[in-house]
């Protein structure tokens, strides 16, 4: 196939010449165009107001999700910690938004916080009106689990 395209072969020595000459202006132009992009992608976040709250939201969201995944070894406590961390993560994400932080960091923190709350709620809330039953609720849960396992 490459032999069937002789017309391209004479162009090959031309291309390097062309590519050498315009390469210099391109290289000169690159810093002008790319440097601001590089700064926006890497550096501006810490200088934005609310950055710390966004980071706190993300950290709490991660902790909440991790505790939810831990699950069984910690029992109800893991779900409770997930909910608390998730709610705090939502609050911190709200503060970051209020302060004008616009970035994926706060969004990621918010999403993880929501997941932590949802997971925690799934783990800890057994029913809507079981508290009234008091001790019978605790016994009922254990009896229900036992009867299901049998």
């Amino acid at each position, binding site marked *: 196939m490459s032999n069937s395209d002789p017309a391209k072969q004479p162009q090959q020595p031309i291309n390097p010449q062309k590519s050498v000459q315009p390469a210099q202006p391109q290289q000169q132009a690159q810093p002008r165009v790319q440097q601001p992009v590089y700064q926006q992608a890497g550096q501006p976040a810490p200088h934005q107001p609310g950055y710390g709250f966004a980071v706190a939201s993300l950290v709490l969201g991660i902790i909440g999700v991790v505790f939810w995944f831990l699950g069984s070894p910690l029992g109800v406590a893991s779900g*409770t910690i997930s909910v608390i961390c998730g709610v705090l993560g*939502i609050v911190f*994400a*709200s503060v970051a938004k209020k302060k004008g932080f616009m970035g994926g960091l706060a969004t990621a923190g918010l999403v993880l916080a929501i997941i932590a709350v949802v997971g925690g709620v799934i783990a800890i809330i*057994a*029913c809507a*009106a079981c*508290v*009234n039953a008091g001790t019978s609720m605790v016994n009922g849960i254990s009896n229900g689990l036992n009867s299901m396992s049998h």
Partner: protein
Amino acid sequence: MLPFVSVLGRTFPMYGIMAATAFVAGLLFVMGRAKRFGNGVNDSIFLYLWIAIGGAVGAKLLYLLTVLPNMIRDIPLVINDFPRFWNLYLTGGFVFYGGVVGGLLGAVMAARYFSLTLVDYIPQMAPAIPLAHAIGRIGCFCAGCCYGIPMRGGIVFHHSIAAPNGVALFPVQLVESAAEFVIFVILVIATNRGTNFQKATTVKTDSIASNRMKGWDYLALYVGLYAPVRFVDEFFRGDVIRGIFGGLSTSQWISLLAMFGVAVYFVLRRQGVLTGRARLARL
């Protein structure tokens, strides 16, 4: 009916799963309607989250209020046996009307904090309340809580953690869930019609436009539809431990007050004292 499910070796309460499903369904519903009502998706999400947190706190606090004497009696458990105290009072137990009040307070706080005009979000978000509640009631049915009166040919629970097992009961949870779904559909149609009307007309001072439902009217409509349902529904509830005063349950008294309040609201609205956006719109 099915209080727990096992997934990958872990046991989850079905009520918790349905509560989480209700939360997510409401969130997706609100996000999906943001553009139609001209509101920002981001603002809608934060507002919804604050409403959800406020609602959960309000529902829990009102419930704890109903069991306050017992909780005060069990305060020593906080030191002696905290897991037991936690199981008794903090893992479950919510009163819906407390959630409505708490959610409203959460909405007001969020609107003030983010400098939003709350009334613009009411038509968008109001149907999410019955949607979430309807799904939550299915969770009640799964857990067996909020159960109905004994009746022949009713639902028989075998593994319930709250309802009496082996007794045929009226499936009041499913009935209320169905009613909530109907209210949800009504609210969606009403709010969509309101939006279409606002898009169709540009004369906002027109008398017809002023009589159209808008803003807070949709929340009043929801309360006006739900309160009678709850009032009747309570006669078929079998869990009487929620408190009976003067022959009516706590929720029935609140329903009566809510119906009275909504009636007053719409009378004032009809007389032109309220406009659906007046005063409260500043929130």
